[in-house]
């Protein structure tokens, strides 16, 4: 009888954000669906009330079913036979119940059977599912594919595929190949147009494909002969019913074991083109990738939440030296920092999601009517904010989920190392989040331009302008000083060459993210007292973390890089 939404006030808090009503009004286009669909809302309050009630359904399924299945699913895993994959029984049950509850296609418009929810409840659900079973949250999260089809495919393809999402058909996003991982420009899977059938035919191999035996597949393939870069790649949709794809093997992984990771062989597999040729990587995958990164961030926050709760429970139950171990400073400090990192990354997650929500809603509106110049400006501004916060939150939330899982396991002591407690699974599951959908290192690459062009600084200044209650004056002073320090660090690094900038980029992105998250916690604490402790704890920690980075950068003369360069010769020298 657990409800992972009802038991989490911090998630519920997001629905009361001042921007929420605006988001709903945009997404519902002034409630034009009410009257047309009997489940459409007629006011913003009505819609938000529905979000809340539907999250309650999801929270109950996650608490009672998905979390309860997680251990068994981790142990049993999916089964591979004759080129097909069968889920673990628990995974199948999760999938069936979520389908019965009508929760797939949350973001899709009603005309395609969706719920037409904004991104906020969708990301909330990704977080809640991630807390229940991180492995399953991948299968859940792949409904993102529907969004790509909705945004870029023809009406014919939309009509053919989208209504099936709400009926629980699963999706996969087939990008990676043995020689094309982080560098997707190297994708080789070949697409040739077949005049006779009027379809494209796919041939080649894909690797590390999550949920690779899905019914609906989006495939990145090389449609232009004699090309070698991203501009020769197009995007295709393949229906399992059409045949031609088989699963050669499934991977044996460290974590998220319930989610089948497949190697796929395409043998003249029929497919339809999504959108325009040559736009596969440079437009569609880039857009999809941002959505997927937000999804991983949500999953990671969910894992942090699970790790925090396990640690809190164990620290209260476990007695040593005659008292519960939470009574010891070493333990309660660790727990408070876990909680502060959890709340900080969650604040950043939903802030980013609100930005995404607003610009995407404008995109949809612009299909029906011309936006006014003010609206266009606003859409552009929010898209910029979304683009710059997405890599930041993907990196932060995933790194924090690993740190939190590590500390939570540490609090468990020897018991945490055993298979007897859920924390060992949480610890393994967290590990992938800093890797897939772009490693943390690649998130830095995406984020560093917003350091150098001042975009992060501008947004920090926006937060600086938010009026705070008098008791936060001291924190505000700290944050203003941290911002000045950040500006100086940026100036020093920007004075160097590109190698020097790349070398220090992560430190700068992290400094910016620490300041942003401190502000977000402080701002949330204006509306809700429960964030006060974390606002103080996190800001003080953030100051110390930034001081360390600042001192490393200022003490680091450009020539020091040479000591790092010699590592490149090490391996060949030894061989």
């Amino acid at each position: 009888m657990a409800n992972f939404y009802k038991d989490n006030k911090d998630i519920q808090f997001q629905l009361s954000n001042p921007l929420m009503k605006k988001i709903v009004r945009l997404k519902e286009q002034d409630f034009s669906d009410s009257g047309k669909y009997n489940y459409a809302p007629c006011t913003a309050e009505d819609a938000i009330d529905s979000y809340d009630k539907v999250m309650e359904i999801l929270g109950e399924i996650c608490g009672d079913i998905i979390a309860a299945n997680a251990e068994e699913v981790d142990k049993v895993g999916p089964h591979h036979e004759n080129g097909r994959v069968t889920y673990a029984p628990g995974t199948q049950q999760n999938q069936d119940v979520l389908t019965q509850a009508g929760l797939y296609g949350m973001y899709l418009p009603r005309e395609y059977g969706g719920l037409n929810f904004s991104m906020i409840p969708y990301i909330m659900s990704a977080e809640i599912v991630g807390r229940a079973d991180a492995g399953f949250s991948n299968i859940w999260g792949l409904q993102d594919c529907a969004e790509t089809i909705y945004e870029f495919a023809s009406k014919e393809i939309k009509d053919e595929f989208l209504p099936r999402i709400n009926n629980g058909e699963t999706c996969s996003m087939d990008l990676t190949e043995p020689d094309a991982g982080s560098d997707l420009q190297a994708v080789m899977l070949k697409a040739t147009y077949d005049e006779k059938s009027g379809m494209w035919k796919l041939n080649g191999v894909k690797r590390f494909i999550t949920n690779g035996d899905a019914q609906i597949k989006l495939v990145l393939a090389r449609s232009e002969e004699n090309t070698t870069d991203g501009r020769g790649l197009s995007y295709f949709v393949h229906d399992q019913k059409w045949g031609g794809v088989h699963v050669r093997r499934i991977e044996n992984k460290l974590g998220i074991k319930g989610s089948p990771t497949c190697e796929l062989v395409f043998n003249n597999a029929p497919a339809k083109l999504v959108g325009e040729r040559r736009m596969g990587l440079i437009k569609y995958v880039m857009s999809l990738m941002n959505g997927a990164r937000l999804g991983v961030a949500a999953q990671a926050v969910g894992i942090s939440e699970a790790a925090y709760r396990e640690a809190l429970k164990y620290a209260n139950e476990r007695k040593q030296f005659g008292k519960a171990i939470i009574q010891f400073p070493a333990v309660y400090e660790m727990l408070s920092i876990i909680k502060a990192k959890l709340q900080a990354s969650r604040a950043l997650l939903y802030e980013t999601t609100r930005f995404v929500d607003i610009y995407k809603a404008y995109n949809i509106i612009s299909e029906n009517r011309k936006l006014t110049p003010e609206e266009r400006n606003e859409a552009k501004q929010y898209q910029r904010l979304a683009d710059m916060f997405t890599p930041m939150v993907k990196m932060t939330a995933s790194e924090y989920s690993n740190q939190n899982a590590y500390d939570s396991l540490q609090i468990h002591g020897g018991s945490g190392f055993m298979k007897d407690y859920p924390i060992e699974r949480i610890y393994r599951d967290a590990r992938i989040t800093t890797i897939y959908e772009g490693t943390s290192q690649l998130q830095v690459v995406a984020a560093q331009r917003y350091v150098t062009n001042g975009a992060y600084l501008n947004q920090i200044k926006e937060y600086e302008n938010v009026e705070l209650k008098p008791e936060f004056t001291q924190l505000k002073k700290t944050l203003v000083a941290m911002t000045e320090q950040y500006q100086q660090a940026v100036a020093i690094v920007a004075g160097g060459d590109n190698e020097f900038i790349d070398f220090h980029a992560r430190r700068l992105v992290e400094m910016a993210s620490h300041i942003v998250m401190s502000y977000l916690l402080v701002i949330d604490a204006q509306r809700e007292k429960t964030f006060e402790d974390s606002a103080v704890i996190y800001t003080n920690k953030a100051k110390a973390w930034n001081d360390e980075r600042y001192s490393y950068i200022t003490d680091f003369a450009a020539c020091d890089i040479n000591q790092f360069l010699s590592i490149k010769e090490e391996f060949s020298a030894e061989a």
Partner: protein
Amino acid sequence: MTKTFKIVVLAKQVPDTRNVGKNAMKEDGTVNRAALPAIFNPEDMNALEQALRIKDKFPGTKVELLTMGPLRAADIIREGYFRGADGGVLLTDRKFAGADTLATSYALSMAIRKMNPDIIISGRQAIDGDTAQVGPQVAEKLGIPQVTYAESISASESGKITILRRLERGIEEVSTSYPVLITVNATAPACRPRNAKQLMRYKHASTLSEQNDNEHNSYLPLFNMEELTIPEWGVADVGGEEIKYGLSGSPTKVKKIENIVFQAKESKRLSASEEDIDSLFIELISSHTIG
């Protein structure tokens, strides 16, 4: 055209006796309903699932809930809507108050006559009284067949309905004709979850009393409330003899209530050795616990 059925599910709002806190009982030994959350009786939820499965198989079938209780029991009808039912009736009247199983089954049977279903399904028993009497009594009052302890129900177009009953030593298959009343065991499949679209469609469903009371629901006038109004029936709506309702229709008198404290009984330790296992088997067979 395929056959369709009219199904009534009997459901009760009960205090959640599975999550008992320290204030669960009042000093006088009666249940402190205020301290326990009101929930949909668990086995009635299994019953609802059975009804919905018949509806899945025979589209066009109508599943309605019937519940008797105070005004807030309208939650039961809404919960039914959220999980796929087509509506329901709240039987509520001060004259129904204080009913034991006899008066309850009389009231339900009178309402059912008005609803005229082919199949009536209820949970085996409610977790507050644990009597398992109401279902069978309703069937008796209506003069129709009853099948208890059901785990699965196969309705068919031929006029026959087949039920698998969970009995102590196995499963019994029973066939009968319509109309029929069936009570369902907790071992039957769990109810499907609330459906998001159904929830959004019916969350404003309410009784007239609730609508009059609900000042904060400022957006209610924006909906077609005619479709979303849950009927409330009182004695006047279902007819019958007034004396048979409520307290006056309830011969049950509580003589005494005792508090029982569960205690661990004496235990026996066994090892995994062949000897111990053999002796355990011999003991269990001779006491007819197994075999």
